[in-house]
């Protein structure tokens, strides 16, 4: 009862309240959707502790058992402590760890920014290898995909203009007209699926984490 019925009831009540108050601008209901997002963030804040705890334990187990590559877990701890400690110090010193002069932001810029942008830049390589491997004219569907991709790729660089001066125009037509319909169709489909899924969750028909 406590373990199954109450959670179902909580989801039902919360869901219904949020849907109904969506149509009521009168206070205190008008702001409820926004408030709910704040509430979600606060719960998220608490849960972050559980997450970090799980990650720290994951590496602790590796260290304790001296699993293969265990010493990299020490690197993990160093990185974690570096940001955590500089963060706490900056928060105390400036009252705001995100102050542009804080040590926390200094390490953010020297460590996190290059890591972030390089990881992001790897996409250039993967987009090349994926197109090489996957863009084969196996059937009509794949051929449509391939041909459109090639036209758009060429149409967006000067070489495309040199090959055929109408290519950039064709590319913008594809982007503004041809792909608009299917993208819209996909999104309407997703939205309908979302509504159906949310209804099932609120009504307690769909229970992922409850039996």
């Amino acid at each position, binding site marked *: 009862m406590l373990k199954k019925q*109450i*959670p179902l009831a909580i*989801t039902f009540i919360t869901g219904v309240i*949020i*849907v109904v108050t*969506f149509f009521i601008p009168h206070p205190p209901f008008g702001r409820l*959707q926004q408030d709910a*997002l*704040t*509430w979600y963030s*606060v*719960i998220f*804040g*608490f849960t972050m502790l*559980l997450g*970090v*705890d799980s990650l720290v334990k994951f590496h602790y187990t590796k260290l304790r058992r001296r699993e293969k590559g265990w010493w*990299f877990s020490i*690197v993990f701890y*160093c990185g*974690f402590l*570096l*940001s955590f400690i500089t*963060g706490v110090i900056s928060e105390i010193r400036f009252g*705001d*760890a995100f102050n542009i002069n804080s040590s926390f932001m200094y390490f953010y810029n020297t*460590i996190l920014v*290059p*890591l972030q942008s*390089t990881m992001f830049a790897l*996409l*250039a390589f993967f987009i090349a290898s994926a*197109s090489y491997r996957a863009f084969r004219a196996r059937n009509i*569907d794949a051929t*449509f*995909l391939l041909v*459109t*991709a*090639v036209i*758009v790729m060429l149409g*967006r*660089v000067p070489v495309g203009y040199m090959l055929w001066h109408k290519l950039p125009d064709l590319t913008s037509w*594809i982007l503004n*007209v*041809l*792909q608009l*319909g*299917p*993208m*819209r*169709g*996909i999104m*309407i*489909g997703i*939205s*309908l699926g979302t509504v159906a*899924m*949310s209804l099932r*969750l609120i009504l307690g028909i769909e229970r992922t*984490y409850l039996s």
Partner: protein
Amino acid sequence: MIEALSIWVAAGLTLAIMSFLYGDNPVYKFAEHLYVGYSAGYWLIYTWHFTIKLMVIQPIAEKQPGALWLVIPLFFGALMLTRWFPRIAWMSRWSIAFTVGIGAGLTLTGAVHGYIIPQVKATILPLWTGNGLTSFNNFVIVVGVITTLIYFFFSKPHTGVLGKTSKVGILFIMVAFGASFGYTVMARISLLIGRLDFLWSSILKLVHFF
């Protein structure tokens, strides 16, 4: 000196991540563990500052109107932490149920009001506008939406007319995917250009430094 060191660190980390392209190796492993560790700590501080401090502590300390309502998320947030105590861990399900309820409510209204209604409205286009090209474009858009939606019919077998329209639908979908793929290539290459330029200018700077 500090500047040179910063450049060394940034350039070194850039190369370390790029080495993953060759295969897994200790240098990448180092960078990866540092990255995961550092960013986990970073987000812990971020959550503290922007969520707990600005959304909870400050409104309560300043007695802002409506701060009392924060009792609700504080209660469910605390319940979430019961997961640390196996005997009462099941209580955290109440919090999950609460967040799922919020999620279901928000996505339901968001999908209808924010997407379905405006997109259906945008698709109601006259197929004749007096201008040949716009009329044709409108036709293409309307057909694209309809056939794609028909592809996502689940409760009827895709045979006969339904089958043929859904075939057209999947072709439209493939064109959209191709366009989207080709469109993104440019941005991704730009990122690499930025990174390699950073690396090259760092090397030049360091050569100059010594």
